[in-house]
C-alpha cells in the first residue's frame, strides 16, 4: 500500500501544527465560532449532538495493522473506547474534546493518516472497491488511480471552495462494489478494443434529497489524461455550480439542469484547453505510485476448504470472496452482530483486526462502504484459524449482504442533522430476522437506513430502504423498495405513507413475506421486485 514521501509527511505535519494553533486560539477566545467553524470542518472536526466528532480519512478504505492499532489507541485515549466505520470508508469518533484535537491529529500523522478534507466543500476521501488488488474479477488494481486522484485533489488550490462537497469513486471491475454511479464522479478503469487501459467517466450521481444516477459522459479517457479530464469536470462544475442555493449546489443538479450532453460538451471544451496547458502529472509518477500496490508474495497452498464444521462453512459461504490467487480468499469481518450497532468497533476489536491482518493478510485491511472490514489476502489454509478468532471476538457473524448486514447512519442518536433514529431500527430488524430464522432463507437482501434526507445510510439504494422523518416532533419512517448501488444501480421507490418504529419493522417483514411467496427459482429479492413491481407489496402493506 502507499507510503508517504517527505512531501506528504511535511504537508500533514504542517497541517497538524496549523490546526493545533487554530484550536488554541478558539479556546483562548481569539477566534469566534463563526471564524473557527470552517477551519475545524476542513480538518474533519464537527460539532454533533453530544460532543465534537472527528472524521478520519482512510484513503480508498485501505489501511495497515499499525494504522488500525493507532485508530484503536485514539478510541481508548481520547474517546470512549470505540469508533464508527462509515459509508465513506472512513472512521468517526463521537466523543472528542476540542482541547485534544491537536494531539489526535499528531497521533494520526505519526502513522501517515489525517482528517484533512473529510468535511467542507472540497474533494473528499476517494473511495474504491474494498476487494481492490485481491478480487478475481478486476481488470487491474484501481487503487493506484485512486491514489493519484488523492494526491491531485489534496490541497488543490482551485477546488478547496467548491459550490458543495465532492465525492469520487474508482473501480476496475464490471461488478460495482463501491456505489460508483452514485458519486459526483464515478470512474471505472476499462480496456478499449486495442487492449489499452483507460477510464470511463460517470458524472453527476448522488443520493441526498435529490438522488440521481450518474450518466456516462465519456467511455474512454486514456490513463495519461486521467487527471486532466477530472480537472475539466471539476472546472465546469466550479464555474457553473449553484452557489446561491445549498440544496441545488451539487454537481448532479448542474448536470441535470444543463443536460448530460451540454455538460459533456463544456467538459470536452475545457479538456481540450487543459491538454494544451500540460497539467497531467508525468506517467512516471503513476508508475511510481503503482509500485506501492504490487502483489504481496502469494504462496501456493491448499485450494479446498474443509467444510465439516457447519458454522464455519456458513461463514465461508457468506463472508468470503473469491481471490485472484486460488490459494487465497478475501475475508469479511462483520461489524454487524445480531442487535449490534452497524459499523461500531471497540478498541479491543480494532486491535484484534490489526493483529489478524498482520498475521493472516499481509498486514492489510480494507474498510467497506457497507461498514464492515475486509482482510483481503487470507490463505485458505489459515481460514479456519482466522474464523475461530473472529467468532470469539464477536466479529464472525455470517451475514454479508443478508438482511442483518444493515447499513445505518448514526441518526438521531448522534447526528445533529438527523430527524429520526436509525440505529435502534437496525438493531430490532436484525434481531427479529435472526430470531425468526428468515434471514437464512431470504438470501441477498440489502437493507439501508438513513435518519434524514441527506441519505448517509444510502436508503435510496437499498433493496429495502428506510428514511427517518420528523412528523410533528415524532419519529416516522418511509419505506422504499427496489434500490441498488451495485452495477444494476437503481433508486428505490417509496411504498406509500410512513410508519412508526414498530410499524416499519412489521412492514419490512411483510415485504419479505411477499418476496418469499412470489419468488421464482433463485431470484433475489431485487429480482422478484423488478419482475412483479410495487403493486403486490403495496397491497400487502396497506390494504
Amino acid at each position: 500500500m502507499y507510503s508517504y514521501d517527505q512531501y506528504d509527511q511535511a504537508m500533514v505535519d504542517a497541517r497538524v501544527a496549523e490546526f493545533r494553533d487554530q484550536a488554541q486560539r478558539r479556546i483562548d477566545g481569539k477566534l469566534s465560532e463563526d471564524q473557527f467553524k470552517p477551519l475545524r470542518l476542513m480538518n474533519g472536526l464537527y460539532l454533533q449532538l453530544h460532543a465534537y466528532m472527528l472524521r478520519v480519512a482512510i484513503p480508498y478504505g485501505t489501511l495497515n495493522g499499525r494504522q488500525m492499532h493507532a485508530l484503536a489507541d485514539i478510541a481508548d485515549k481520547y474517546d470512549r473506547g470505540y469508533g464508527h466505520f462509515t459509508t465513506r470508508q472512513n472512521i468517526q469518533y463521537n466523543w472528542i474534546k476540542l482541547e485534544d484535537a491537536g494531539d489526535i491529529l499528531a497521533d494520526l500523522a505519526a502513522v501517515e493518516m489525517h482528517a484533512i478534507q473529510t468535511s467542507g466543500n472540497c474533494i473528499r476521501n476517494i473511495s474504491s472497491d474494498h476487494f481492490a488488488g485481491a478480487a478475481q474479477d478486476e481488470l487491474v488494481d484501481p487503487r493506484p488511480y485512486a491514489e493519484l486522484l488523492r494526491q491531485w485533489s489534496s490541497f488543490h488550490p482551485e477546488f478547496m471552495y467548491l459550490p458543495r462537497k465532492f465525492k469520487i469513486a474508482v473501480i476496475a471491475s464490471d461488478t460495482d462494489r463501491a456505489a460508483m454511479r452514485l458519486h459526483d464522479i464515478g470512474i471505472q478503469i476499462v480496456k478499449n478494443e486495442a487492449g489499452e487501459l483507460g477510464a470511463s467517466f460517470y458524472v453527476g450521481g448522488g443520493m441526498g434529497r435529490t438522488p440521481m444516477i450518474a450518466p456516462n459522459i465519456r467511455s474512454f479517457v486514456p490513463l495519461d489524461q486521467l487527471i486532466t479530464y477530472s480537472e475539466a469536470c471539476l472546472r465546469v462544475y466550479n464555474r457553473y455550480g449553484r452557489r446561491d442555493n445549498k440544496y441545488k449546489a451539487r454537481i448532479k443538479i448542474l448536470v441535470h439542469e444543463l443536460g448530460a450532453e451540454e455538460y459533456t460538451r463544456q467538459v470536452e471544451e475545457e479538456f481540450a484547453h487543459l491538454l494544451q496547458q500540460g497539467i497531467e502529472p508525468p506517467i512516471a509518477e503513476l508508475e511510481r505510485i503503482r509500485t506501492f500496490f504490487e502483489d504481496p508474495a502469494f504462496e501456493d497452498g491448499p485450494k479446498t476448504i474443509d467444510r465439516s464444521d457447519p458454522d464455519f462453512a456458513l461463514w465461508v459461504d457468506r463472508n468470503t470472496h473469491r481471490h485472484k490467487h486460488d490459494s487465497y480468499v478475501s475475508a469479511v469481518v462483520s461489524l454487524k452482530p445480531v442487535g449490534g450497532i452497524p459499523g461500531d468497533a471497540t478498541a479491543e476489536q480494532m486491535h484484534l483486526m490489526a493483529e489478524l491482518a498482520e498475521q493472516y493478510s499481509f498486514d492489510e485491511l480494507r474498510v467497506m462502504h457497507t461498514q464492515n472490514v475486509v482482510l483481503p489476502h487470507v490463505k485458505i489454509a489459515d481460514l479456519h484459524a482466522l474464523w475461530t478468532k473472529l467468532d470469539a471476538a464477536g466479529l464472525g457473524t455470517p451475514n454479508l449482504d443478508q438482511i442483518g448486514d444493515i447499513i445505518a447512519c448514526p441518526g438521531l442518536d448522534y447526528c445533529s442533522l438527523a430527524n429520526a433514529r436509525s440505529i435502534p431500527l437496525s438493531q430490532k430488524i436484525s434481531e427479529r430476522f435472526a430470531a425468526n430464522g428468515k434471514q437464512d432463507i431470504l438470501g441477498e437482501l440489502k437493507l439501508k437506513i438513513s435518519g434524514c434526507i441527506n441519505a448517509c445510510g444510502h436508503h435510496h439504494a437499498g433493496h429495502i430502504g428506510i428514511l427517518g422523518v420528523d412528523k410533528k416532533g415524532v419519529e416516522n419512517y418511509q419505506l422504499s423498495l427496489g434500490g441498488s448501488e451495485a452495477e444494476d444501480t437503481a433508486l428505490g421507490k417509496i411504498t406509500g405513507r410512513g410508519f412508526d418504529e414498530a410499524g416499519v419493522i412489521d412492514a419490512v417483514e411483510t415485504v419479505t413475506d411477499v418476496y418469499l411467496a412470489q419468488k421464482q427459482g433463485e431470484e433475489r429479492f431485487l429480482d422478484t421486485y423488478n419482475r412483479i413491481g410495487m403493486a403486490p407489496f403495496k397491497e400487502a402493506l396497506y390494504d
Partner: protein
Amino acid sequence: MNILTGNDLKTGAVVWWDGNNWSLNIEDAVDVGDDAEAIMAREEQSRRVNVPYAVAATLTDGVPRPDHIKDRVRGLGPTVRPDLTLKPDDPSAITEII
C-alpha cells in the same frame, strides 16, 4: 418554558443554563423567559459555550422536558448506548425520553 442549551467549548459536552452557570444536567435548567437572547449573547462573549440556543420545554414531574426529541436525546445521551448516557444505572431513562 424556555431553557437554554449549547455545547461546552473545550469538551463539546451538552450543557444547560442553570441561571448562573452551565450545568451538565438538564434537571438544573431554568426558565429564561424572554431573556434568552441577552444571556446567549453574553455567554458567547465569554467563550464558555458553543452555539447556545433556546429550547421550548415543559415542566414534567418538576423536571424540564424539551418538546423536541432531539433535545431530549441531547439531554440524556445516545439511546443505543445506555452505558454512555448520564443515567447508565436507570433502565427507564431512555424510554422516558422517547
